[in-house]
């Protein structure tokens, strides 16, 4: 039985990442996650499973949260991608970033970029109405250090301020 290797194909993609247009020439198999990390040196977005099951790679695409490990870079032509590096504006932390620090919403910090991107989207989705709702709609972002109660507290506080 012939087990063929797919012939390598390269594609040209123009991504809008954190407000900057990036022209890439990449292997068609490259995920958005690997393109961000390896091609654009935006290593804040993390690989926790590469199978769409942990949320560590969460970024915003056109304002909606997506799993960048399940998204091919080639699918993102022309889309506006926001990563953790693009969240702070003019050197000032986003309110969610600030709240995560004060509520100690992380320990090792590896899942944190994904948690924060997910939290920013959740607030925009209007899903922070109660602790139960926050817990449910943050359950796609795993944290093995177990910072969940502090993550809920941080999001609750930002929601209470009416931010975003």
């Amino acid at each position: 039985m012939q087990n063929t290797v797919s012939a390598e194909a390269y594609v040209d993609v123009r991504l809008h990442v954190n407000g900057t247009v990036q022209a890439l020439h990449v292997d068609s198999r490259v995920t958005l996650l690997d393109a961000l990390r390896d091609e654009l040196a935006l290593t804040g977005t993390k690989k926790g499973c590469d199978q769409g099951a942990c949320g560590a790679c969460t970024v915003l695409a056109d304002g909606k949260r997506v799993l960048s490990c399940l998204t091919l870079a080639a699918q993102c032509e022309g889309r506006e991608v926001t990563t953790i590096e693009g969240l702070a504006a003019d050197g000032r932390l986003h309110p969610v970033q600030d709240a995560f620090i004060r509520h100690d919403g992380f320990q090792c910090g590896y899942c944190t970029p994904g948690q924060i991107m997910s939290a920013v989207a959740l607030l925009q989705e209007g899903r922070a109405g109660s602790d139960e709702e926050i817990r449910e709609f943050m359950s796609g972002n795993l944290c093995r250090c177990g910072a969940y109660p502090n993550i809920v507290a941080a999001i609750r506080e930002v929601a209470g301020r009416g931010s975003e």
Partner: protein
Amino acid sequence: MTTATREKVIGEPVDRVDGPAKVTGTAHYPSDFTFPDLTHAVLVQSTIAVGTIRGIDAARAEAAPGVLAVLTHENAPALVEAPVTLVDGPPPFPFKDNRIVHRGQHVAVVVARTHEQATAASRLVEIDYEEAAAVLRIDDPRAPVMPDRFAGLSGRGPGDVARGDVAAALASAEVVYDETFTTAPVTNNPMGLFATVARWEDDQLTVHDANQWPTMVRKTLATVFDLSETDVRVLVPYLGGGFGNGLRAWPHVILTALAARVVGRPVKLVLTRPQMFTSVGHRPESLQRVRLGASRDGRLVAVAHESTSTIGSLDNGQIEPVTQVTGNAYSCPNVATHDERARLNIPCPHSMRGPGTTQGNFALESALDEVSYTLGIDPIELRLRNYTEVHPVSGQSWSSKSLRQCYRAGAERFGWERRTPEIGSMRDGNWLVGYGMAGVTFTPGEAPCQATVSISRDGTAHMRSAATDLGTGTYTIATQVTAELLGLDFDKVHVEIGDSDLPSAPYSGGSALAVSLSGAIEDAIRNLVGALLDVVADDESSPLRGRSPDEVTLGNGGIQVADAPAIGETYLDILNRHGLPEITAFGERDPWANPASRPLGSFAAWFAEVRVDADLGLPRVARMVSAVDAGRVLNEKLARSQMIGGAVMGIGMTMLEETVFDPNTGRIANATFGDYLIPANADVPDIDVVFVGTPDEVRPIGIKGLGEIGVVGVSAAIANAVYHATGRRIRSLPITIEQLL
């Protein structure tokens, strides 16, 4: 020398100093590092559990686009045997010969220019196996028994307890209890995929590697590649969790460095999530028997606790100390404990947070709960009747012990007095409500540690040590300790860790790092003050001229005379006047050179409310409370987080987690985050933590260590609550809905 407490920062709930880096994506983990000519390695793993490799056909992989090398046992250069470390022996190196001892063993490494090319080519490596019969069950009589490697001919290890006459006491006890417990194998699964980036420059090796012990990885790599330790540098400024996974230099670390040497370019290897189940250890399965003898009034007259834990078939690992604290938890004249391991064809288990003790506590504290129902004595009262003021094995008094306060404060916060003792008596609609508790005695570690502390003319201080911060807060607490002891502002202190070139530090493990590092910092600052006083010894313009370290105190950014605080000067005054850019002192503490005069323990009480759906058997942990005696708490915010994190991991192993080995093939049937369920946000209730300890009288800064105790006791508290709610006594973790239907 004493230290003034004006800039008191120890204990305060300071935000993590690494917080801004972590929330902006600028904290660099090992897999984030790259080099211009970086290449990528992907592992090929065995698809049989035991046997030999008859042959390997790598031709198609080697011919695939971008491939630079395919390494296997057939072409890999021979390496020197890895050294035995403080924790245990090395895991077997997979490329030594053609033997396969577990499914998922590394059998080839494919190196290519890109990750995609390496991944594609890895599927083209063809391995011809000769398969043999695998031993995969803990109760398989063919599984060889591995006693403690320090055990004598008797097979009894140094951790085993034999006190009094257990057999006679059980034979004459008024109440006798005898049950078997099991705990499933569970996998650490830190979120950070373990990764190694290796680069050779001539015979100098630099490695960015996910581990909890850079100096051990350095020593291992130096040994196996026959280098001087000074020619190897291991860097891990940030680590995406570890929970024990990072306490060994696993084979993939060595293979990455080997691949980089073979291809002559830097190599990055990132384990996949399925490979995280087979390559870096897991908490072994345990099979335990607990026998108790008690009087009708609830006094323990006999405790016998035996455990078998699994281990890999060629692994030279340490004993899993399941019964480690059983002999010290309660006052009892007749105690016998024994731990051993059964060799199976499974990936090497290894340390996972609170190794052994976590599994053992589940059995012992569940057994006590059962006896409390037999005797009709409140579970807390039963524990108080067997409270021990002295460390039973040594007979000495503890260096500190506030377990009584843990029971009292925890019960109060939890509302234990609302508990009605009858099973199923606290129903709330369709929910069967149960309250359960568990006591915790834990033995935290301590290990030799070194550090330097420098004061610079820009007014900053630097603390440097080869320690790591795997999310435990080392950066922050080391800053607090240094700032307080120096009497400097917190934001003037900078901590550099995560680099094997820095002064030697022990593992982040065994709840040992905070205390070990604090002891080294204390010594360095003592030496720094001595050095500063030496500088001004003959300085006529110094108010400290001729003073000795015993006569001074530190505070307000300088040194003052202890009994005349108005007399003194700042560190900067001394450096400026003497034209010194900075002054550095070395410090170390070796707890083994002068063993503590009194035995050490940390203590806790866990309380859980569980709700079980009366029709569906659906179990939910509704809330948890812990009262902890960990001695002096360095940072209440981070300490609380660490306890909560332990509880979440405990909820996982109690309610959700089991690494399922297929009994026929040894394949892990659920090696993904989609199938192996760790707690998600919605699985975790409110967790209330209260610290009741006082500073320990023996250990540096009064610290006892908090890294592990949070996970211990969670399982028994939940299982005991499940029993109280439903009358189902679950002696097998995890507790699943099938067991409650």
